[in-house]
């Protein structure tokens, strides 16, 4: 499937900004599930200081905001050919030892709520992949998808407590439970082409679990399916903190507003 | 040289200069308190006004009694310009720019701070006051001596001088302005109203009594005194001398490339304002207005120096 992706974010600053940096992780890589045909990152109101790779092998851009700017626009436009690889992603070469993916992080660290939630999972793992699918569905059943109830700082523990959240929370809860079984798994951020035309598209999140002899197997908890050719993965990490598409450090006295717009179109349509 | 270091150095020497000036003001007041009780209240009022601490003083005190004022000026924490606080600030800036100072300058500064603050923190008796002030100025002189004799001739030193003379210009202008304002409230009144004691106080508070007398054959005369303190380029605390030093040091920092230097150009315009005053003007002719403009231009010059040399981000 050929996908056209256009993602724009605008930050407006009101007040005095002494210095501002944005760390941008918005550049996908080609793999067995996707071929990047075209991809451009454009910055208005800032300078691309450095492009480097982080420890997950994600492509990271450091943007320094212009001294006299009060608006910065960060946009990506790209064309990606996606391939259905039956939910198994074997692109991945980073130097991290596989055991590092079994560690809980700040955002997935289980507390009382999550441990209880885990205890009540009503099935066992005879077949690992089936088990993980049931786990994914179980989370989707129990944690209602309601945007606006959680934010980017919400932990899996907090989301389970209120039984509400978005794809990010679903993914964190899933990672937390899988790690309680001591299995390596990771957080994926990327783009997803929905079935229905939706006005308010945003970046998506799902999980991958490493299974011996198979590789990284994907689980989109919020949609209850395995990622297929409607998915473009952008970045990987232990949790959301590692893959934040745009993370800023701004110094000064100001208020900040931002808005994002995403469009994904299949060219074959 | 780091902008931050230039900032610390510049302010270190502004504070040292300020400490010296404030100490001389206190000493002048104290001398008058000992020798002539006449007009002593006005004297203290003028000193408080010159250092910008008048309001702070009346928040705490009702009357202008000499010893209260002196203690207030020396170490009262409600006075942001007390000597103890000024020295603290000077030493903190020195510590920040420790790497740029020679060991001699740093150690002289540090021991000046250690010893003076130790003395000031103890109880102060009348008999100690002159001694404390004298020793303080001696210690500052030691710092300046080491500065002149141990520092490399480069931009670090030029910023030391820049801070010193920006502060000095401000101080001399303020002393003249405040005296003029307080002791000559009415421009119709002629200069003989200011008695010799007052003129002597002005000169002494600028450490200029002897120099003036030597140049003017022992004659205290208003026009001569104001010319001496404003326009004399041999008198190291005059406005003219201070401004010449400011311009010279900016030029040195900029390696003579001053055509587009905002600070240098502002300095030049202050210079032409300064020199617009003719030597034959009567003492009080437009003096307040003139000094007021010079003081605010000098403040602006300080700000422009901070911008031009990247003191802050």
């Amino acid at each position, binding site marked *: 499937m050929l996908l056209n992706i256009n993602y724009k974010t605008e930050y407006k600053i009101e007040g005095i900004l002494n210095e501002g940096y944005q*760390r941008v992780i918005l550049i996908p890589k080609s793999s067995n599930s996707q071929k990047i045909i075209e991809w451009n990152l454009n910055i208005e109101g800032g300078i691309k*200081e*450095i492009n480097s790779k982080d420890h997950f092998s994600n492509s990271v851009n450091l943007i320094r905001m212009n001294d006299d700017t009060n608006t910065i626009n960060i946009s990506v436009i790209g064309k990606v050919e996606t391939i259905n690889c039956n939910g198994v992603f074997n692109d991945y070469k980073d130097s991290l030892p596989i055991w590092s993916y079994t560690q809980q992080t700040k955002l997935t660290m289980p507390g009382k709520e999550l441990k209880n939630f885990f205890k009540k999972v009503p099935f066992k793992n005879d077949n690992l992949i089936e088990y993980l699918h049931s786990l994914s569905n179980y989370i989707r059943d129990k944690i209602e998808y309601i945007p606006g109830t959680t934010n980017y700082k919400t932990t899996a523990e907090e989301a389970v407590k209120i039984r509400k959240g978005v794809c990010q929370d679903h993914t964190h809860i899933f990672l937390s439970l899988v790690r309680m079984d001591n299995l390596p798994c990771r957080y994926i951020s990327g783009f997803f082409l929905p079935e229905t035309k939706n006005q308010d598209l945003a970046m998506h999140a799902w999980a991958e679990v490493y299974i011996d002899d198979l590789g990284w197997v994907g689980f989109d908890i919020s949609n209850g399916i395995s990622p297929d050719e409607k998915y473009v993965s952008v970045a990987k990490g232990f949790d959301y903190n590692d893959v934040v598409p745009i*993370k800023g*450090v701004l110094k000064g006295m100001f208020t900040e507003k931002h808005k994002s717009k995403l469009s994904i179109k299949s060219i074959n349509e | *040289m780091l902008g*931050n270091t230039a900032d610390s150095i510049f302010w270190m020497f502004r504070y040292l200069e300020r400490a010296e000036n404030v100490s001389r003001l206190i000493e002048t007041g104290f001398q008058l308190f000992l020798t002539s009780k006449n007009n002593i209240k006005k004297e203290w009022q003028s000193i408080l006004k010159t250092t910008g601490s008048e309001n702070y003083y009346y928040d705490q005190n009702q009357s202008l009694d000499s010893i209260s004022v002196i203690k207030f000026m020396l170490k009262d924490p409600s006075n942001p310009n007390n000597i103890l606080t000024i020295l603290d600030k000077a030493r903190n800036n020195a510590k920040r720019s420790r790497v740029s100072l020679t060991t001699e300058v740093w150690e002289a500064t540090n021991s000046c701070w250690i010893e003076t603050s130790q003395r000031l923190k103890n109880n102060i008796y009348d008999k100690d006051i002159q001694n404390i002030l004298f020793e303080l100025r001696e210690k500052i002189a030691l710092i300046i001596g080491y500065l002149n004799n141990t520092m490399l001739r480069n931009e670090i030193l030029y910023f030391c001088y820049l801070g010193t003379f920006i502060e000095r210009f401000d101080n001399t202008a303020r002393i003249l302005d405040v005296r003029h304002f307080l002791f000559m409230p009415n421009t119709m009144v002629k200069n003989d109203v200011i008695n010799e004691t007052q003129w002597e106080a002005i000169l002494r508070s600028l450490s200029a009594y002897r120099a003036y007398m030597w140049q003017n054959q022992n004659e205290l005369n208003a026009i001569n005194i104001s010319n001496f303190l404003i326009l004399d380029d041999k008198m190291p605390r005059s406005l003219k001398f201070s401004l010449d030093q400011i311009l010279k040091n900016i030029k040195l920092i900029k390696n003579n490339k001053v055509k587009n230097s905002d600070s240098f150009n502002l300095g030049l315009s202050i210079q032409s304002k300064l020199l617009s005053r003719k030597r034959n003007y009567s003492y009080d002719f437009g003096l307040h207005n003139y000094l007021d403009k010079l003081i605010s231009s000098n403040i602006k010059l300080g700000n422009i120096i901070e911008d031009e040399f*990247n003191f802050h981000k």
Partner: protein
Amino acid sequence: MNAEIRNFQYDESFNPLKDYVCKGYDEAINDKSQIRITYKKFLKWFNNQNYSELSKKDLDANRLFKITGITFNVYGDKDDTEKLIPFDMVPRIISSLEWEKVEKGVSQRIRAINSFLNDIYHNQEIIKAKILPLELIYKNPAYLFQMVGFRPPNNIYNHISGIDLIKTKASEFYVLEDNVRVPSGISYMMKNRDIMINLFPELFAELPIRNSKLYPRNLSKFLKKSSPNSNIKSPVVAVLTPGVNNSAYFEHSYLADQMGVELVEGIDLSIRKGHLSMRTIEGWKKIDVLYRRIDDEYLDPLWFKEDSLLGVPGLMDVYRKGNITIANAPGTGIADDKAIYSYVPEMIKFYLGEQPILNNVQTFRCSHKTELKYVIENIDKLVVKEVHGSGGYGMLIGPFSSKKEIENFKRKILANPKKYIAQPTLALSTCPVFSKTGLVPRHVDLRPFALLSKDEVYVTPGGLTRVALKKGSLVVNSSQGGGTKDTWVIDK
């Protein structure tokens, strides 16, 4: 203020060794109370000194320290005045023969640690070979995933190390700790020497004492050598300090001053044209080598602690791009871990194929059930330390603690056993210290500083000797009332 300057009264009956009674190994006298050869000349000279003169010199020394500004702040101390670390004017003297062993041992150790760091952030052969258990890295906050797979310039991690040693008998040195995060104390070593030369020039003229003041020149040389790109002709070095209120600020400014480089803070820095740059009066200037004196987690708010104001956003991007050297490398702290410490002798064998020259102290890890049991049962004989602690905070010395303190500490250990390790209480050697009545023996340790580059190791001749000034005390940390002395390595 007076508390830190010990006042001496002139004492007619002064005899330097009159009250000198020591139980264990002493640096100055042997078990037959005879003066050791290393101390003979010094004590002979000392005996000929006028005591009141010496007392005056002792005061002079403390005054010099204060004027120099070589002061520190004690954490958690409400009194914010700057304090002096007490200085003792009797040197700790080491023979060149003994020193040779220390020098070789320290050099061996820091090379092994660097190899370990290269390994643990890449292939982890030492874990695969089942020498080091994975659990020591797993969930260890000092292990930075951000460094995994990244090669620091020239493969050097611990450019600067301070190895804490104690001596129990002749030529018998034990390593207590490897300080490889941001080791401090070097300025005290240098200032101690300055002051000794100032007070007793005649001793330096007469005795063949090795020069310990070459450290800044070597530090500068080693840092320049570690530049990220060998094409840079004269790399720009800067020292990064948390600021003027940091307890080690004096040391930061001292080292920058001695090396002739800028001392920078976060507010002076920015990323310009892909490089870390400092704000000068003429605009931005690139930095090639950053000697940082702030901890890993504060280096870059985009990569580590988000609210850090001390570091620079994007510094790690510059680093990973290969545009700067950070010394020591982020993540080096894993080798500083007190549980990892017990494997350093294994590392020496594994990476260097050599036998360890310096001894390790036997270490019990409370994370192990059987070892925990031993620690709890024998706590009154042991020293218990926090795995990540430093500066003598959060430790218990069994033999010197009250029953109540021990019970409290036991509870702390049992609540979080992983946080603690324990070691037998070793008899630190004693060394003469100047006192009212003459010389008295006090326990000392030794921290030599070492520099590492791709082709060279430098170990300071001597190092910092810390001394527990309280009678019988084994805690030498300045935060716990310890002092320092000059350390002499004497050639024959």
